[in-house]
């Protein structure tokens, strides 16, 4: 039992992201309203960001901005890798955030367009309107 507890404590971030991600995925598949689906999509993408940022964390390290006097001769000072967290996941997630915002913007524009045409955002109503033709 203590081992299981250790396992949970060690990795709870990874478990949480899975829960969050599945909430988003379920909303994307199971919900009927297009806006709710979009919200689900956002949760889904945010969960991935949480996962990546968790990868970057290192115990006992600080944000990856080199401290101290970094004007002249800063390169001489010794920089210890253990003092700073991993910058790479943060860079990747900056990209992923921008991508998800862009996708969300386009999806919103499409929702507006659909609403202009059909006056509804409920999927079953849309399906009914389409099959009437």
């Amino acid at each position: 039992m203590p081992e299981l507890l250790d396992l949970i404590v060690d990795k709870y971030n990874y478990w949480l992201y899975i829960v969050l991600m599945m909430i988003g995925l379920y909303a994307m598949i199971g919900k009927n309203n297009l806006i709710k689906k979009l919200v689900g999509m956002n949760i889904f993408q945010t969960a991935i960001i949480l996962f990546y940022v968790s990868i970057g964390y290192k115990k006992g390290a600080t944000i990856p901005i080199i401290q101290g006097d970094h004007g002249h001769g800063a390169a001489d000072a010794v920089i210890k890798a253990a003092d700073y967290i991993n910058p790479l996941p943060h860079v990747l997630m900056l990209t992923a955030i921008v991508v998800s915002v862009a996708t969300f913007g386009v999806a919103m524009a499409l929702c507006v367009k659909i609403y202009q045409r059909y006056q509804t955002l409920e999927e079953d109503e849309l399906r009914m309107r389409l099959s009437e033709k």
Partner: protein
Amino acid sequence: MKLVGFIIVCLTGGLLLYGTGELPAWGDPNSPASTHLSDDYITLALEQTEAPNLVTAVLADYRGFDTMFETAVVFCAGLACFLLLRDFRPKKDHYYRHVPTGVMLHVKNEARTVRTGREFEDMDREWVPSDTIIKTVCRILIPFIQIYALYVVAHGDFSPGGGFQGGVIFGSSLILLAISYNLKTLVKRVTEKFLGVFSSLGVLVYVGIGAIAMALGGNFLDYGKYAPIFGEHHIRALGMLGVEIGVGMAVTAVMVIIYINIVSEGRHDEGL
């Protein structure tokens, strides 16, 4: 659909949980992700690029090529909103408000328009008159927000910040203008054509800096090749600043384009 969704969620969740079994513990400093490349970036980046903010160093230099496409994605989103929603048909009805009396005027003849100014102001159909307090506060705030945005862009390689963040702050200051006054005020000051050209130009600055480095005999985006023109000192950090400015321009313009097109359903006349 709900049942299908539930089954898919259970399967995917199970798969992911299975995958966490062998992951290194959270925050373990000896995991491969924290040692293989990360150490190199942390110890070498300041020396090689002279940017103390390692995230910016990786973002705009080591992986600058990624970031260029990221900016292209932003540009693409702005263009998408324009292409999908923009509606060039002129509006039939016009609403005005007589400022001294507060009387609403509804002009149905599309040929006749009322000159706005001291006496009349533009109104939306579903919009309450803008409040003097809100207007004044926002008018005072907006320039400060914009200066802060420029600071965030310019300071990206020393402290948290950069083109994306600064661009979003600048864009939001313009959106604040639209919210506190009305959309027409914004569209009149920042025209659609300006925004369209500006968003392309922003990405063009980024790609241009890369392409000129190529013309100077280096690889694409190799800022070091600018040394003969700008001097050796801090040349890579300078290159980063250049591309961050481009990113900031593009993001600002695209934020406003997306906002205007979505709130006004592409009519650019009234909205939130």
